[in-house]
């Protein structure tokens, strides 16, 4: 099954700032990505700002220019994503730091320049095929695995020092789930991390 993606960009000129003409054509030709233009785009923004989310619920990933939405609409959109388990990417020129949350639903806030890179089309293709584990693959590409390993080591450190059994078990579970997401047996986290750092 193909994951459906919605990309709401109210200023198409911004894509031209970061992508080549051919990349823009390729982006708009992706079958599984809905990129409404002109009046259609305005229509979508009006829907969201009027809290009409029926049409949006069919999408698995929503990418939207944050500044195009009203304050309360962003929060409502977040609630919809939580309910439907959709993933949300908010992009804007004013965001200087990547912020990512995954507890309730995956929500990524990034600068526009981080969205519109040569990684975008590849990410969308992989995502539509259901092969994407984390939105962070869009930001870090191959380095995404390093992120998981560093987080594993952080949890392992906490786990090793933990005297509270209940918390220790919870951390071990967390670690186990995290390791599964990289789909391979990691014998020695430190060695694996050092190997990746050496390749950077």
């Amino acid at each position, binding site marked *: 099954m193909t994951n459906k993606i919605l990309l709401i960009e109210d200023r198409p000129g*911004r894509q031209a700032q970061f992508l080549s003409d051919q990349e823009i054509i390729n982006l708009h030709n992706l079958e599984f990505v809905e990129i409404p233009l002109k009046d259609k785009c305005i229509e979508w923004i009006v829907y969201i700002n009027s809290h009409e989310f029926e049409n949006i619920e069919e999408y698995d990933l929503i990418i939207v220019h944050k500044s195009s939405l009203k304050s309360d609409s*962003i929060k409502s959109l977040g609630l919809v994503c939580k309910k439907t388990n959709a993933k949300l990417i908010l992009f*804007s020129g004013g965001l200087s730091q*990547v912020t990512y949350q995954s507890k309730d639903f995956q929500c990524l*806030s990034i600068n526009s*320049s981080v969205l519109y890179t040569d990684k975008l089309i590849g990410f969308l293709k992989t995502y539509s095929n259901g092969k994407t584990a984390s939105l962070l693959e869009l930001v870090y590409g191959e380095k995404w695995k390093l992120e998981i390993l560093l987080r594993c080591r952080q949890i392992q*450190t906490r786990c090793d*020092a933990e005297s509270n059994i209940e918390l220790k078990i919870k951390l071990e579970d967390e670690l186990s789930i995290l390791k599964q997401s990289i789909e391979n047996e990691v014998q020695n986290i430190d060695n694996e991390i050092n190997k990746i*750092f050496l390749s950077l």
Partner: protein
Amino acid sequence: MNALLIHNDNLPTALISNFKNTLKFNIGYAQTLEFDFTFDKEAHNQLNDALGNKSFDTIFIPYSLSVNNYLELSGLRLALHIRLTNEFGHKNTPIVFLGHETKEQITKISDYGSFLFSPGIFNTSKFEYHHLEEQHNWVINNWKENSESLLNKREYDLFLSRTTIKPATSHLSNHSLVNEWAIYQWAKLINSEDNNCFHQIFSKIDTDLYFNYLKALHPISRQNVIDRKDLEIRFSGEAPKVLLIDDESDKGWADLFVDIFEEFYFYDIPSYDFKNKSLNELLKFCLNNIEELKIDLVILDFRLLPQDHIVNKLEEISSIKLLKAIKLYNPGIQVVVFSATDKVWNLNALQRAGADGFVNKGASIELQNKYSVKKSIESLVEQVQESMSLRYLKTIFTLLYKIKNNINSCEYEDDSSFHGFIIELKEHVGLIEELGRNLGKSPKSTDFMFLACFHFLEKFKNQYFIQDRRKQVFIGLERVDCKMYRLSGDTITKSGKLIDQHNSWFNAIVNLLVDYFEVLPTTHSEFRIIDKLAKLRNNYIHEDMQSIESENIVHIVELMDLVTTKMKE
């Protein structure tokens, strides 16, 4: 130990619970989904609560504070906030990073890696409390020879020189950043920082990491603040009308200009939706405003529309198109370009399009030194002052267009002597227009303009006055008697017909205005001015050649208008 531990429950619980002073730095969904959320604002607020009015001798921070994304390395960004923000009071406090990674490894995955190699920055891969206590004692007592653990000025400057913080890379947001930084500096330098209009910008400048970095690099001291007296712009007559055309005018520029141009009529177009307008819509809207408000001076930003950031040719930039349109409408309207661009090719294009001046808003942030904004403010005052001295050009060109219309609406028979005269006048007005475009650009430009205008009027004397065999002088096709006029006070007195005498320029012009075209009554004060213009020209040619003042250029062009208003054969 008197140290602060910053964490997000991402360190061993035993370590966190042993620390007396802790800050749990957490950003949740609620904050992220706020419309105006920025990481820096959140970091600033949480750090301010934890550090303000307190005094810690060391700060411990893990490289990453996110439990979802280690590569955010938010601990690093928080540490930079501490180093760069004055109000936290911990700019010089030693910082110890916690993490298994080496400084070199972090440098490979962060833009701020060089910060880790600056004075007063340490790291540890140990997570037991007693190890951190040992590290703390070493930092307090041993990292410097004189047992002073805080960074001194040399060490702080070394940190600044080794650290680079980049702004957001989007063209549009970078454009806004340059504007906000410039407005902040302008407001500081003209002592307008208490103005409530700047609250939003000052609040952003105070919380944003990049701006705090710029503040540290380019501090503004009290002695650099400009005296209000030095901002005064002199002008004569009615208060000048200034229009600011800037897509960022509502961000603070308009408020700054209201402060600077307090004696002027100041206008801007704050509600205009630059982001969603076409070039043609922009040109039409601005020209309508200039015409309706009778604007004397336009202060024009360089990039007004979003497409200006991606156009291939400079000639397609909206401000260059608008500048040409303004100069086509009236070359006398003064246009000072006010922009953040400092590219030579942009300035050349603007000059070619007719810009009368250029003021850099705040220079390129990268190349800025602490005096450049002050120079920009001084330059603005100087160039607006210069524009005020050329304000009369707008009147000149308005009159010249009217004179052309007067001439064009004259009736004549083809190939008649009057037809030839009309053609001659049109060519002469074209020449005067060209001279008008150079007014103010060279010391002799007003003299040349005046003489050309005088010559234009002299053509009337040659065309209209005919002497018969008895040496009596008549005017025009209607053969109206030419009188002898003398100036008496503000009015003129007539003393019979002109016979066998030299018909002076003054007498010829008065005869035409009073008796032939009948556009002036004999009681009009204009005659004193006509007499003054005649004497001025004679003195210039025969005596002192003193420069002609701009008010006399206006007078003689007004006279040209009067003479052509009801022109007939």
